[in-house]
């Protein structure tokens, strides 16, 4: 397969379970190794990088939102948001993190641990975490898969708003056709291959 994505663009990957969506996402983010081919992220060939170099690249360029939120259970909401900055050695992000949490509607729950938050709240913390270090590309794996429609609506809205404001490329893996329809490009996968690609007129 051949796939490229411009800065600020949005891409949705759809397809039945087991079609290779998450694997593709993992390969693009340098979380897994391809047996053949090459993945270039902002000009860097991921397969030529070691695990630590890939981690550094992710930290600099990539944001993640997972279906099961994947917050660090031992950290509070604000601490979770700060992790990508802290890993870079930046310590002045407190105000920005607070601002982001206020923006996602969690201004009053900053010091709660993930266990004390609802699923929707956890996903909003994850969103704030994904944007805190202003990534060039954001990978979202079924970001609303675990949420009901009432909860997922504002999250999707936030995802696209942040994408627009920060010029972040957005890659979405989803089963939800309504969510996919919000992306400019939609590719459909089956059996590990891209079977179709369409573009939506969203602007």
């Amino acid at each position, binding site marked *: 397969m051949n796939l490229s994505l411009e800065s600020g663009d949005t891409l949705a990957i759809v397809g039945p379970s087991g079609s290779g969506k*998450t*694997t593709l*996402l*993992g390969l693009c983010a340098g*979380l*897994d*190794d391809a047996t053949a081919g090459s993945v270039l992220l902002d000009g860097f060939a991921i397969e030529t990088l070691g*695990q*630590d170099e890939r*981690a*550094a*690249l*992710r*930290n*600099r360029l*990539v944001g*993640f939102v*997972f*279906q*099961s939120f*994947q917050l*660090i*259970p*031992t*950290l509070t909401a604000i601490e979770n948001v700060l*992790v*990508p900055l*802290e*890993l*870079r*050695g930046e*310590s002045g992000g*407190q105000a920005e993190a607070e601002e982001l949490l206020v923006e996602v509607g969690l201004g009053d729950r900053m010091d709660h*641990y*993930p*266990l004390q938050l609802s*699923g929707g709240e956890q996903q909003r913390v994850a969103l704030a*975490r994904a944007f805190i270090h202003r990534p060039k590309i954001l990978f979202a*794996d079924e970001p609303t898969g675990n949420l009901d429609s009432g909860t997922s609506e504002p999250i999707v809205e936030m995802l696209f708003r942040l994408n627009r404001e920060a010029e972040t490329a957005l890659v979405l893996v989803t089963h939800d056709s309504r969510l996919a329809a919000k992306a400019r490009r939609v590719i459909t996968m089956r059996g590990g291959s891209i079977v179709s690609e369409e573009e939506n007129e969203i602007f």
Partner: protein
Amino acid sequence: MAWRDSRSQRLRLVVFSLAIVSGVAALTAIHSLKTSVEGGIESEAKSLLGSDLRVSSRKKLKSDEIESLTKRAERVSREVSFPSMLRFLPDRGARLMQVRGMDGAYPFYGRVETQPIEAWKQLRQGGGILLEPSVLDQFSAKVGDKVELGGIRLTIFGVIKKPAPRGNRFSGFAPEVYVQLGDIERSGLIGKNSMASHQLHLQIKEVRDERKLKKAIREEFPKSRWRMETPENRRENLGDALENFQKFLGLIALASLALGAIGVAGAVHAHVTRRIATISVLRCLGCPGNLAFGIYFAQAIALGLLGALLGGGLGVGIQVGVLEVLGDKLPVSVIPSPEWRVVAQTTATGFLVCCGFALLPLLKIQGISPAITLRSGSCLKGSFWQALPIYLLLVGLLLIVARSNGSDWRRSLALVGGMVVAFLLLATVARILMAVTRRIVGKRWPYLLRQGVSNLHRPGNQTLLFLLSLGLGAFLLVTILSVGNLLNERLTLQQSDENPNLYLIDVQADQVSGVESVLRDNGLPVLESLPMVTMRVQSIGGVEVGKVEGVPGWVGRREFRSTYRNRLNFTETILEGELATERADPSGIVPISLEEKIARDLKVGIGDEIIMDVQGITLQTEVTSIRKVDWSRFNLNFFMVFPPGVLEDAPGFNVITTRTPSPEVSGEFQRELAGEFANVTAIDLTQILEEVRDILGDISTVITVLAGFTVLAGLPIVLGTLMNGRDVRLKESVLLRTLGASSKQVRVILVIEYATLGMLTALTGVLLAIGANYALAIFVFKASPWPNLMLIFSALGLVSFVSVVGGLVLSRGVCEHSPLEILRGGS
């Protein structure tokens, strides 16, 4: 269901089983070795007597008496010993010797060593004599020379390097020579010699109760005035080494059991924690709490049983292996065969205790709510009160184990109580640590440090479990090792070069300074120099000694050699009363101090009156102190000690002790001494000392080996502890990697957390162990505590090291593998 549930976790369950295997293996090995070695030590104590029973008499034993005694025994040997002049031919001079004539295969336990080796066998054929090496030196004689004893001439067959056990420590004030009993009869010396002691050595198949055996013989021969000795009487030569050794074995057995059990509890906790989600699903589907508990309890029992059986087998292997490997070094001839009864007992006990400890985390299953299915990430919560019956059950089990290991109830309670206190203290330290870290971590701290330290108090932290399991493990191990060390230090002291090996007896008051200067001229130290006065007991509490109920007859016949001084020596401790330093009233009652065993034989205590007959002069005395004496040091000690100012004018002599480096030096010195002070007799104790030193050295080896094995019992703890924290840390680390953390950052966070935990655990465990060591030293082993800095610092370093390395091993997978599993919404 239990079987089906285990399918996805078999590898993990194998690790849990390993915890039980190593725990039970250590327990079985230690208990089996204990039983083997105890049996061996018993027979080693016999080698100090050489037989199961020694009957000594001043009169020749009649043939019907010998016949009757022989019926009780498997083998017998006769011996006659007496002092006699031995003339070295041709005309080299003569010396008074203690002659020992024997027949049969005595000693039945231990062996006599000679130079040349075959000399002892050769002696049985008659016509020869064996001498002490220093005597040979003194007369410049050599093997093959002739000597004259009474009316016969004998050839020197060799020298004695390790003698046959003697009648008593001062069986004669002369060097020993060994002759065949038939030769003695030919010499015509017996019969004329009223100083002869006739002895019968018996080897008896099984002596259940040494005291009952003596009593039965006394009842059979009520008129006899025999002195009877059994191995029990000889143990004083080993000091408290044997008794301490047995206490140590009991302690080690208890600790190894507790260590294994803690490890099992940790492993089960880790297992159940991983199954929370499954259990909550089961609960959700309508499974009652009891059934969920039953499923995992059945798993634990099945694994426990398997682990216990494998552990038992491994333990047998270790025991037999150790005995095979160490066979020659062990003090005793132990046959490397399994002690099946012990194996069955320990395997069953190990299984029971492990099941009991497994109940602690399992009980929490009932508290797992079905609501967890709705929200992941819950941790196990339990209530103390719910677990209390199990704690009590476990304390009860440990008490029974402690009791069955030879401690009385009071001591068992103290030992188990000590463990409970350690447990509570560790839990308190853990809580304090959590509270402190919650407060001190500041926002300005570097992120990695903040994250590492904060992990100590955050949800899902492992602080309490870590401190409890690894802390208790470190506490028990360091306690065992330092007590082993303490005992070894004491044993070394007993084997010390400071102990005398040559006694100079019969030194007259005006000869003391002369003898001392001969010693100094020969470069030999004067270790002790004390006056000695002989006396007899006339009456006790106003009743003539022979008529006092319960006081053995020999007390009245015995010539007590007493001394006078106003201080204790380094082997004495006052048990009761106070040592009298002077006679308060010059004409009044004399305050005396008695050794504890003789006080028991005389049936007296503080304040009781004894009238002594000091060579015709009656002396009224009162017991004002009872002393404990460590006889194993072979320095000058006395049953009775008088204050100065009483016995100075009584006829007596002085005893001087010294230490000679070799038989040659000893011979040279004795030759010079005989020239200047012919009346002074030298008694060479080198050979007895070496025999005792051998046994003590071997006990020390066994202590070290067994203490080493408790380390094996500590293994499951490390496994269990690390398994407990693994899942949470693994997930967190993978997530950090996904978010861009370098492997170094992940490692630093883990190292900070594990190093803090490890160091604090080590510190608490070691401090507790130092406390326990002091308590055990003072209350159980009656010794001065011996803090070994080397051991303390190594333990501190090792526990910290193990926890950091363990933490890093956990992170190994994180740094080498792809973090994709997180994307899969994985666990």
